[in-house]
């Protein structure tokens, strides 16, 4: 398997000790000083190298403890206990949960996919993407054995619209014009998050990661200056709304993002004229009636549409509608109008885990745009202090560009492997074929109602157990 099909990761250590879910409480009062103290017997040797990280007052035993509880259960005087760590519980919010954040840190550090033993421990299902499962193949159809590069599974996508068909000369040469397309090796584009204390170095690091991964970083056009100019091939300048863009400064750029607004059609026309080889992506927030809007955008000749949901993966104007449902409905609207292949649909907003990439694509997106995960990769705790002018607890702005780049490459390396896992399980060997393949998904609402909607009736005096 040639190296070019893999993402090469390298450990990029945390700069700050991460919070752990629970901590150890070990009294010394009443200690008998047993010769075979349970602390000495710790399999993970957490008590031996104990130290205090004074920056955050984190005790290293908490980071190293693997929750086997042998010390808790073994101490004859019952001096050791465990407790939920309030700092961990306070991370993020209901969408960017502490568990998700901690997993992102871990992936950014190691580049490895999260693995654990003894079954699934989470809730049965949940809102949004948690209300769907992906399918797998079995016996009647083989899976792809893609993990560890065992078999090649392509995760590359084409940005831009494709023709519905080609025409050839009698001698078999291509007659039709080549479609303007940009291929990226994984269906993920980075976008600068709308908050976060990110200075120039961080953005440079992200640009380096985008280049290293062969994908793009989207950021406001006005930010592209200085050193960043060198990264133009992997940057997507975002033209600010209302800004009159004549297309200046777009030399060397392959892709540009224009936010949806009344005159976005004109802007894109202008850019197209000035730079015919630049692909234009139109970003539209997900609001009621967005399907119609997307159809009209595609109609106007824009070949990439970026859908923007809220940071919690919902519609911008109705938090009972989830990203997955809107992607699906836009995709189907395009299919019904026979226009699906003319446009690349990118989904964004609240995408927090590798599974969200696969699920967005199953629902009908070609690829995704991620923002906060590349910030969390830098140890961000989603505390929002930066938005209040408080200092960043993990000093993100102090990070080195090369460290930033490796953290993001690690994260996406892990996501890439997870994408391979789910695609392999489905028996799909090209992510482009996964697009809209709802046949390989299981939707909670339907299945649950079909299965449990009409069970038994409870008679008088009957008891439930």
């Amino acid at each position: 398997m040639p190296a070019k099909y893999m993402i090469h990761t390298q450990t990029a250590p945390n700069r700050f000790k991460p919070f752990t879910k629970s901590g150890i409480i070990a009294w010394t009062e009443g200690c008998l000083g047993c010769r075979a103290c349970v602390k000495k017997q710790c399999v993970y040797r957490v008590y031996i190298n104990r130290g205090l990280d004074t920056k955050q007052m984190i005790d290293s035993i908490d980071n190293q403890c693997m929750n086997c509880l042998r010390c808790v259960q073994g101490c004859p005087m019952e001096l050791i206990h465990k407790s939920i760590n309030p700092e961990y519980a306070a991370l993020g919010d209901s969408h960017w949960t502490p568990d998700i954040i901690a997993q992102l840190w871990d992936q950014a550090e190691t580049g490895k996919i999260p693995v654990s033993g003894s079954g699934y421990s989470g809730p049965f299902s949940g809102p949004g993407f948690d209300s769907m499962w992906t399918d797998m193949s079995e016996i009647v159809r083989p899976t792809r054995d893609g993990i560890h590069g065992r078999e090649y599974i392509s995760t590359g996508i084409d940005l831009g619209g494709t023709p519905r068909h080609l025409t050839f000369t009698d001698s078999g040469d291509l007659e039709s014009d080549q479609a303007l397309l940009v291929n990226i090796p994984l269906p993920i584009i980075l976008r600068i998050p709308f908050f976060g204390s990110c200075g120039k170095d961080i953005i440079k690091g992200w640009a380096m990661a985008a280049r290293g991964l062969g994908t793009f970083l989207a950021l406001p056009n006005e930010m592209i200056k200085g050193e960043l100019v060198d990264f133009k091939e992997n940057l997507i300048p975002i033209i600010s709304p209302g800004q009159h863009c004549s297309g200046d400064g777009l030399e060397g750029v392959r892709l540009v993002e224009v936010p949806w607004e009344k005159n976005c059609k004109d802007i894109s026309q202008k850019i197209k004229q000035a730079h015919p080889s630049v692909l234009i992506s139109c970003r539209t927030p997900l609001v009621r009636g967005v399907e119609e809007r997307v159809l009209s955008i595609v109609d106007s000749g824009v070949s990439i549409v970026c859908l923007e949901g809220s940071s919690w993966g919902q519609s911008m104007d109705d938090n009972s509608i989830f990203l997955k449902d809107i992607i699906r409905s836009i995709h189907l609207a395009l299919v019904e109008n026979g226009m699906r292949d003319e446009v690349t649909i990118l989904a964004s907003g609240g995408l927090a885990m590798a599974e969200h990439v696969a699920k967005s694509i199953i629902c009908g997106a070609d690829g995704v745009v991620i923002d906060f995960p590349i910030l969390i990769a830098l140890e961000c705790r989603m505390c929002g202090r930066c938005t209040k002018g408080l200092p960043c607890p993990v000093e993100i702005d102090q990070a080195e560009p090369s460290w930033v780049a490796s953290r993001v490459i690690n994260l996406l390396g892990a996501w890439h492997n997870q994408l391979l896992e789910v695609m392999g399980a489905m028996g799909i060997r090209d992510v482009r074929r996964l697009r809209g393949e709802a046949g390989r998904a299981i939707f909670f609402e339907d299945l649950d109602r079909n299965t449990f909607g009409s069970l038994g009736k409870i008679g008088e005096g009957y008891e439930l157990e």
Partner: protein
Amino acid sequence: MNLNKELPEVVITPSRFKNPIGKYRLHRTNECIECGKCLEVCPYDVHFKIGRVRTKNHYRCVGPECPNPCYEACPVEALSLKRNPTFDTMGDFRWTPDLLVSTWYMAETGAVPPKGLEYRIGDSGGGFDRLRLILPPPHRTKLAMPDEEVHVGLELNRRNDSFPKIMIDVPFYGAGMSYGSVSIITMLSRVRAAAALGTFSCTGEGGYPDELKPYDDHVITQVATGLFGVSEETIQRVRIVEFKYAQGAKPGLGGHLLGDKVTPAVARMREAVVGYPLFSPFPFHSVYSVEDHKKHVDWIKAINPNALISVKVSTPTDVDMVAIGSYYAGAHIIHLDGSYGGTGAAPDIAKKNIAMPIEYAVPIVHKSLQKEGVRDKITLIASGGIRTPHDAAKIIALGADGVCTGTAELVALECIRCHNCESGRGCARGIATTDPALMRLIDLNWGTQRIINLFMAWRKELIRILKRLGMKSIGELVGRTDCLVHLDYMNK
């Protein structure tokens, strides 16, 4: 049949740790005057007196549900009760701390906990945890027969073919856990318990250690995608051979034993190289279709024409086709492994997302086998998140004939579900490890008895449920969805 078979004895088998964890903790201050009142009132032997009056068995305390609380009885208010914070750090949505502790209780005593612990359901918010058995009012259940007359056994070969009939005495058997992923002591404890109960335990895919030889009649050997340790000799040794096409924990993915766990013993068993990771491919690269599958089944039958064939699959959308295909391929048992179970290490993305929970798959398969007219010719076994006897009863009511146990057995051995089976030397509690020093944390007799106790508690609980439902055998419960209700749809 077998109704009077002697059951193994329940022997109280307490935790191997000094401080078993309970939901509550009691505190005794220096005010205590050693009057012994607490000892007197406590129904659960929490306090005792050897020399001094002491509180020892915190874990047995049922907390506020206690009918005779010691802390109220104490004349000097030296006792106070609090919920144990350590308890709340344990477990997860599926295996709540209540479930862990109540399973430990069953493994210790052979009975379900009396009070204070929710031993029937977890807190996942769906599936089993929102399903309830509908029990008729006690007076309406006319069956007042003794427990011994309730038949909970299960015939595994329901085809009329040349293969032997094999009856198990309880409607469950042990799911595959491989040598290497768990210790030999764990394996032996499981299989010895299975033998005592008149049922089976599966080797998993890591080979068939010689230590299991005395229990060959109660061993299911697994033929999994890595074919590790599988030879004609191992296939010919057993009465049931299980094809593992997939496992619920990582459906669609191959196995992977980390290099750290490939100790000399494991490497010898699998004839591989010490310290290198071991991969099982996915799928069976000799089976890409249902007719390949038939050929595959025929192959094992060619090697051992007397062994029943079980086909373990997970739960894709077309699980019904997989099941019917397996029936036509000649399988005796179709074993569905739902996505939320599993014991080995697996990628989190797979455990959470790939394939459907067993609660959905069983009714789909049950109905389609019925429609096909072959339901009564194949045994349908469910696994993947069966944690309690109630889960077992519910899944049987949804259409399974029986279940496989996995995690519950490990919990009986005091697995705490720290999810670190895969890391370093493996399980710090000596269950899922190959490290000789850690393995020694479990005594074989202790382990065996703990699992026997657990199984006896399950058996007793299943019998109680059946009697409440007015049923004389577990077979009557199969597919009785009218005995179930789902809380989310109850009033709709």
